[in-house]
């Protein structure tokens, strides 16, 4: 058994599989009366993510990034295939997985009638984090992201970017070893975004495993050890940013992204 690096609650991974996450031929097909045409949101994806890795999930709108994350954190069931988080099967051991993960959803999900501190405290309590730990982390995170001044105001009064920052902090309050960040920096101004990058980078030093989706390709290039590029629910490329840049003879990751995600359109798909 591998002990995770998390200090607060001795969270334990489910097997001695070195992968924090493993996805095997995952499929999610939406069909039914609400859907006019069958949607293959995720169409046979396989990849694995090492412990302590920051892994970028890139792809155009509707590529299947959020769907993949939702399957991994148990919000929806896959149609086919297997997914493991912390060595646990999402279909069988979801309760164990929930102890290991922190999730920053694509849409900021915080209580508008609570202030930042109350929001963070509430979710800390759901994770059974000790009161002193909650207080210490709350102050540290708020300070790091520059949200301290507004932290006693109700979230209703927050700007879009401030809500996103709070959304991110809430995901981290339990000091989870595995973190899902679904477009965490949308709507942040360039300065705050860079602060947030630094913040996410500092999590890597604590040996956290992070799954990050973003449309800011330079963000992925700066932060991620490896990225996967998906389109139409299929994995079309995976590797280190540098590797991919070399492979496609591009000047940066964004160019790689444009080259390979545009290909389908050019080829007349």
């Amino acid at each position, binding site marked *: 058994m591998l002990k995770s690096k998390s200090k607060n609650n001795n969270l334990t991974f489910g097997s001695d599989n070195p992968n924090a996450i493993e996805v095997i031929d995952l499929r999610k097909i939406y069909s039914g009366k609400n859907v006019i045409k069958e949607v293959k949101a995720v169409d046979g994806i396989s990849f694995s993510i090492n412990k302590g890795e920051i892994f970028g999930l890139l792809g155009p709108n509707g590529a299947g990034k959020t769907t993949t994350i939702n399957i991994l954190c148990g*919000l929806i069931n896959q149609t086919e295939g297997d997914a493991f988080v912390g060595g646990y099967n999402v279909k069988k051991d979801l309760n164990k997985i*929930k102890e290991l993960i922190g999730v920053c959803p694509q*849409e900021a*999900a915080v209580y508008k*009638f*609570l202030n930042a501190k109350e929001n963070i*405290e*509430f979710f800390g309590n*759901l994770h*059974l984090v000790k009161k002193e730990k909650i207080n210490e982390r709350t102050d540290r995170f708020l300070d790091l992201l520059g949200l301290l001044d507004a932290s006693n105001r109700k979230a209703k009064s927050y700007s879009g970017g401030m809500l996103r920052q709070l959304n991110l902090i809430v995901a981290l309050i339990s000091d989870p070893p595995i973190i899902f960040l679904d477009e965490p920096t949308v709507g942040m101004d360039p300065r705050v975004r860079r602060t947030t990058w630094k913040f996410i980078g500092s999590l890597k030093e604590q040996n956290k495993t992070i799954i990050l989706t973003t449309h800011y390709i330079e963000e992925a290039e700066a932060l991620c050890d490896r990225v996967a590029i998906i389109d139409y629910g299929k994995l079309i490329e995976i590797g280190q940013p540098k590797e991919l840049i070399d492979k496609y003879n591009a000047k940066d990751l964004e160019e790689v992204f444009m080259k390979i995600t545009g290909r389908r359109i050019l080829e007349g798909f």
Partner: protein
Amino acid sequence: MKRQRILALVKLQVKALIRVPTTLFIILLLPIALTLTMGLAFGSIVVENYGWTNQTGSIFDFMVPGLFAISALFMAMPVALSFSEDREQGLLKRINTTPMTAIEFMGSHVISNMCMAIIQVIIVGIISFLLGYRPDGAIAGITLAFVFMMVFSLSSIGFGLLTATIAKNPKAAGGIVWIFMFPQQMLASGLYPLPPETQLIGMFMPLYYVSDALTLLFNGVALGNLRIWWDLIILIMFSLVIFIGGIILFKKYGKA
């Protein structure tokens, strides 16, 4: 069941009730306004041999038990609003990614709603008292009245959940909840005497049994009276079915 989680949830729900003006209005001001209106309108109209209890006194005296019951039914509204609002904001999903269990989640709703039911009883009680209402019951009877209200709050949660299941958004929920509240207020609250055929319809609604039992209890009927206990048994069954049915249906059809 972890205490830390339950406490956090109850605290959250209480804050939601206090800080969101609409819910505060519904759970506190609406019962106050209703009781005041009825008291001022019917408090001085004295009747003899009125209603099924053959009471002599003001019409308001006859109405008070129903006012308690109606106030507790209003709780369906904040439940419906908070579930549809939280769903729309992605908060139910977010909570679903934490280790909290469904039992802890619903348990906390039961606790906070029962607390609110007690507060409402006290408020409606004080106002009716100020308006001249004097219950004729013993302490044991009044205590049992609290039990009825607390059991009934399960129904209110259930109606709230059913509303949130049907409603696509909080706005719709605010309207749809009246499908559950209005018929009960009209046909089962016992605010006024109804013809027997109409009353029969009311007997298929949980509110009827609260109102019926409270009328008995506040009129000094002995606790040995079987009708009170039948009321309680039927109310418990109704409330459990509506509460559990609400949870199941919301889980199945309402979460998306």
